[in-house]
């Protein structure tokens, strides 16, 4: 029956419609996979609210009988790992580097895409060439640079070198190439220059794209580990990822505290994700990542 009704919009020769059995199997496979994908999140929550004795008990525990919040104050009071400080550091770094990256990369992307300067293409190929240098290979030289600037264990060292993201600039250029030219021409007729039409026409009409780029950059900055590890030499300048890693390798803290710390660390992002996912999916799909 349902195959008949959908046939009007989605004919039977489309890949989407198999037999009823095939569709049921499809749904079952998806559900099993979805449960598997959620298991790690479940474990974080379960362990964060259990006691160490419950976690290490021989029998499997589905959920702690009496969820305890006691760990939360302990976590922030622990003198060994500055959890509160590291959360603040992460927030400052992630917000500042997202704002800075957006400002620098959208302007650069727009310039490369839309200003008919004679050598624009050459400049663009130069930027592309730096993309070929994998950013992780540059961590030794970048460390050399930052240490000679005296920015070790400093917000400047954590933030500024991450702002000039060739990949984001590339995405912005691809996006602005597809921005409707008519809108800008109307602005030009109204007497706006490049600067005016960029800020008053292009930016206000690119909300979804900017949201997607912002979320990707924010996630990248919040989750980044290697660079903060290289730069954050003193505990005061640790980001939350470095603090967690120290927790993990030291193995002196309790298990439940460790997982509570992990929960605190992923909470902001999961929150952002659940609310902005729509923009993200649209944005990722339309950023020109199509190849």
């Amino acid at each position, binding site marked *: 029956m349902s195959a008949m009704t959908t046939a009007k919009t989605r004919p039977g020769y489309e890949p989407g419609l198999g037999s009823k059995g095939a569709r049921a199997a499809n749904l079952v496979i998806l559900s099993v996979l979805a449960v598997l994908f959620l*298991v*790690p999140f479940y474990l974080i929550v379960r362990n964060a609210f259990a006691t160490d004795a419950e976690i290490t008990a021989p029998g499997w525990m589905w959920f702690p009988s009496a969820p305890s919040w006691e760990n939360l104050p302990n976590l922030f009071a622990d003198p060994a790992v500055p959890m509160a400080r590291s959360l603040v550091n992460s927030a400052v770094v992630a917000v500042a580097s997202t704002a800075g990256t957006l400002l620098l990369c959208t302007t*650069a992307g727009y*310039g490369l895409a839309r200003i008919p300067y004679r050598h624009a293409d050459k400049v663009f190929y130069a930027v592309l060439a730096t993309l070929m240098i994998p950013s992780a290979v540059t961590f030794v030289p970048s460390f050399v640079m930052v240490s000679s600037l005296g920015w070790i264990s400093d917000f400047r060292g954590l933030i500024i070198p991450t702002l000039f993201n060739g990949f984001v600039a590339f995405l912005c250029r691809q996006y602005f190439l597809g921005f409707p030219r008519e809108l800008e021409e109307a602005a030009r007729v109204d007497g706006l220059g490049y600067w005016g039409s960029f800020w008053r026409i292009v930016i206000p009409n690119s909300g979804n794209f900017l949201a997607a780029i912002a979320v990707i950059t924010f996630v990248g900055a919040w989750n980044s580990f290697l660079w903060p590890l290289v730069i954050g030499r003193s505990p005061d300048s640790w980001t939350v990822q470095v603090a967690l890693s120290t927790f*993990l390798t030291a193995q002196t803290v309790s*298990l439940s505290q460790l997982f509570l710390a992990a929960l605190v660390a992923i909470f902001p992002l999961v929150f952002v994700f659940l609310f902005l*996912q729509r923009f993200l999916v649209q944005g990722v799909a339309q950023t020109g990542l199509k190849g």
Partner: protein
Amino acid sequence: MAVSPAAAADTDRAGTGDQRPRSRRSGRRRTALAFWAFTGPFLAGLAVFTVVPVAWSAYLSFFDATNTVTPLSEDFVGFGNYTRMLQDQAFLDSLVTFSVFAAFIVPLTFACSLGLALLLDRVRFARAFFRSVFFLPFACSYVVASLVWKMSIFNGVRYGLANAVLDLFGVDDVAWLFNPDPPWYWLVIVSLRLWIQCGFYMILFIAALQQIPAHLYEAAYVDGAKPGRQTFWHITLPQLRATSVAVVMLILIAAYQAFDEFVNLIGNQAYARPPLVYLYYTALGTQQDLGRGSAGALILALIIAIVTLLQGRLLGFGNKEGR
């Protein structure tokens, strides 16, 4: 670009209404000025934090630069650091580790993300929910995932999830990470990365799947192709070519940068130490040997460049239609 530079400059001038002879040059200069105003700050930063460091590192790689970034001229060692790195068994082992890792992660990520996209494309029920679930791990950092994998799933003792499941089937506990023989640690490392990144590439594939014109499937149906395997190999996969090439590139580039999960799961152990971990401990560990670290980084960069070019050739990066 659709509009040629000269034509665009002309429309600019029409707006300002200057006299002809002078305005061609001043218009062009104004365009140049606007271009550099938009791109200048970014380009300057890119030069300072990418180009200069790489050049500096290349310079350091010719010196015995231990604990210093400005070596003296008597510390010049020529290609000494390069020959030492190429004879360094630990560095060569790290390249092998990376190759094994890439051999696992590239095909698996590709197959899993494409598989998820195909499954999602067919489902008519709770599609947004499933998409969110598969995409959610992308919000999780490698450090947090390592923590869960190491302390709760694959911790090698009875209360770990993996061993608890094996227990149901009467299989003895497996040490997973702490015993390099048999190398079960690969299962831990590869499953972690799969979990984090599959959802992201899945989104790219879903977007590409939705752009395949429906009439191709209609035509295939008329020609007698069976929906399913035949249309997948002869329509879906060829139509996904551009996306597939981009996804393979992105997976491989991300794999070169593998550091977080190796450090947090295994640490500085010789049996599973990718190049970045080795370079990190060489250049920034207790030795602070920036000369050798730089040489290693440049060797790695060279290998990556060659592999990327070869891959581009093999997959035909240039000959795809449209963007």
